């Protein structure tokens, strides 16, 4: 199949469109995770979603993505709640609580998956795709779920934009202004969990964290304004989603999830190196210029 034929193929278009949309949603949410230095929360939540997926399947017996994602959402939220409450109520640090909760939830997920495998009918076959993701099997309905959730996330972010902005950059100031920081934190965490959950079907639980972090990390290098960073991050996420899905469609052997992640990480590395004013190369240039200036002063004396 050449590229032109691919562009006309309906299934491929749905997959590319859906992946791009997921990239945009996670790029937007990643902005806040990266700025709050909680980028790895997405990693934790996505691993913790696995028992929810398996339990939803075991309880209902359907593989309907809405039901499975609801299960994932519930177990992701439980994990996030456990992580935050154990950090708040004991001396355990955030990283340890995160790693512990996420890996034991993932363990529970594999236990439930082995339970599902013992069922007599072969309906459980697709469950494994949640671990690595399977964008190429995305249907119009899945894309619709993404559109609805993505729209809701965008609406909430726009509605609370001012509060979120103050909260992300200066929590003490936000408290002084009377902004309910606890609630904003809860809402942001909930949105992140939701974004992660809808992203899982495309890139899988293991790689989902990169979809949150890489576009936002890339966007951060190009600008100093929050709205610009959020927009750029969504754009980068969208581009990498579409590019990865295309690569998967062009060469059938290539798994879509990892190619999306590689596209997003390549954007991030490029930005770290070449971004104007912040990038590594620009700084080397500045240092070089400063040294030259010093040298010329040296000659003058």
């Amino acid at each position, binding site marked *: 199949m050449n590229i032109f034929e691919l562009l006309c193929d309906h299934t491929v278009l749905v997959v590319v469109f859906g992946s791009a949309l997921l990239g945009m949603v996670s790029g937007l949410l990643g902005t806040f995770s990266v700025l709050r230095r909680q980028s790895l929360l997405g*990693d934790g939540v996505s691993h913790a979603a696995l028992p929810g997926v398996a339990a939803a399947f075991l309880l209902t017996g359907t593989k309907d993505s809405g039901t499975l994602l609801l299960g994932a959402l519930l177990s992701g939220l439980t994990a996030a709640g456990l992580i935050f409450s154990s950090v708040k109520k004991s001396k355990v640090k955030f990283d340890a609580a995160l790693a512990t909760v996420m890996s034991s939830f993932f363990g529970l997920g594999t236990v439930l998956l082995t339970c599902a495998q013992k069922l007599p009918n072969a309906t459980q076959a697709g469950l494994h795709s949640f671990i690595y993701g399977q964008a190429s099997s995305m249907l119009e309905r899945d894309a619709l779920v993404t559109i609805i959730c993505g729209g809701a996330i965008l609406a909430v972010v726009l509605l609370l934009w001012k509060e979120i902005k103050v909260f992300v950059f200066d929590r003490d100031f936000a408290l002084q202004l009377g902004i309910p920081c606890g609630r904003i934190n809860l809402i942001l965490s909930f949105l992140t969990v939701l974004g992660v959950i809808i992203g899982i079907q495309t890139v899988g639980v293991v790689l989902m964290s990169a979809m949150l972090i890489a576009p936002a990390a890339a966007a951060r290098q190009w600008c100093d304004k929050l709205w610009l960073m959020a927009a750029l991050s969504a754009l980068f996420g969208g581009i990498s989603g579409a590019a990865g899905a295309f690569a998967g469609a062009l060469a059938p052997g290539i798994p879509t999830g990892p190619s999306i992640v590689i596209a997003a990480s390549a954007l991030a*590395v490029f930005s770290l190196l070449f971004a104007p004013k912040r990038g590594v190369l620009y700084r080397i240039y500045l240092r070089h210029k400063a040294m030259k200036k010093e040298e010329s002063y040296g000659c003058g004396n």
Partner: protein
Amino acid sequence: MDAGIEIQLIAALTAAGCAIPGSFLVLRRMSMTADSITHTILLGIVLAFFVTNDLSSPFLIIGAALTGPVTVWLTELIVKTRLLSEDSATGIVFPLLFSIAVILITRYAGSAHLDTDSVLLGELAFAPFDRMIIFGTDIGAKGVYLSGGLLLLNILLTVLFFKELKIVSFDPVIAAVMGFSPTLINYGLMTMASLTAVGAFEAVGSVLVTAFMTAPPAAAYLLTHDLKKLLIISCSIGGASGILGYNTAMLLDVSIAGCMAVWTGLFFMAAFVYSVVRKKRGAAAKC
């Protein structure tokens, strides 16, 4: 030896071995580095496999063990530019390396006995089939020797460098002033962690190695203030989770590694509840 006992032995030894480097990672707030390393060793294994074309080659383990320090080095390279915080850098490096590994496997190693499932999830139930044979005599499962050897190596290194590890973990600045190189100790620790992870991944899979590295030390951290006690408690919790996990898995006929990870999580929750209750009692006693 009975296969069931062998599996329990491997499980307990592996979990206890993971708890030692894990304790230092948790103390240094680097738990997510354990998660990162356990994912990136896949790339090391794949690359080494392309070179040696043999899954049981010792070079495979060496190649994989080197990926740990390389991952940490790459992460620190990004952090040093001060363009990203440490968590973001970690979150970019390991998914990238893991993705490369997954693509390499699906493209080029599809026919070989190397798939992402076995790396990510592991299969302990098959461990007793891999026998250690010396001079024609069967002396037990290979896994027992591998996990036991790693545990012994971890204990030996911890005893030898206890002072250095302790001071670097609690106060890297003082350590540097006193002439212990935090960088050297750091990379040594990362090599150990990744070697242990490579040894363990075959049995329990890479995600669950994270559970054994972080959950028992996190639980022990809530129970004691003493580093030696912390190490001993973590190893005991790890070993207990291994044995309890195996028996639960046999009872319910489910994944052994998964059950072990769930047990480590339960131990953590128990320690957490205990510490909260103790704190409340302490507060009540003061009133």
